[in-house]
């Protein structure tokens, strides 16, 4: 189960498991985002490399207009995946408690 929607403050809220089967849903939503946003991962349990592709594709598109994604409340496992992928150099990423 995976869900993605706008939160009350315009942030993008993801929840559940973002696996390869859910990437079309995630990409379709992200393609509708035209400006820089906060991506709240507090309820996102899991992401695979297919989900990383969705994030990277969106970040590249937003960067063309000088914008980008800030990903917050990243759990430890997803934080490891980002670290192994070198995502800290190309995204603004915050673990719970505000640590990058």
């Amino acid at each position: 189960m995976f869900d993605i929607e706008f939160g009350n403050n315009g942030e993008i809220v993801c929840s559940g498991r973002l696996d390869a089967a859910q990437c079309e849903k995630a990409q379709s939503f992200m393609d509708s985002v035209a400006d820089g946003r906060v991506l709240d991962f507090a309820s996102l349990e899991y992401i695979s490399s297919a989900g990383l592709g969705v994030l990277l594709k969106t970040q590249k598109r937003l960067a063309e207009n000088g914008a980008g994604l800030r990903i917050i409340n990243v759990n430890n496992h997803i934080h490891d995946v980002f670290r192994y992928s070198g995502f800290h150099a190309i995204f603004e990423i915050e673990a719970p408690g505000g640590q990058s």
Partner: protein
Amino acid sequence: MQKKFNRSYDSLEDIFEFTEDILANREIQESMRFPIHFVTEELFTNMVKYNPENSNDILLDVDASADGVTVSLTDFGVDEFDVTADREVDTESPLEDRPIGGLGLHLIKKMVDTLEYDYSEKQSTIKFTKGND
């Protein structure tokens, strides 16, 4: 415990539930489950992606004990593709130069203790192990 799964991304939810049941029943610690699910998905989706015309199911075998977890995936009627071979992966270049995709095999090597590939008679078997932290 073994089970065959349809060669489709739509099998991922069933694969997660099948694997999670085994890990939970064997009381495998929470911190090990994410990497096990991650590596299993990456290997399975690789098999789906690179042989979409193949109609054979993919066999998943999960064995969990107090010492750790062993998972193997077997793909039938396929060409050889050694997932353990070294491949160059770009994790340092600036955003505009980063390729989309290609991270999966790089990431699984960071998460497993051992990764083995065996190929014979058009059959690929990938086995990985992860011990308790």
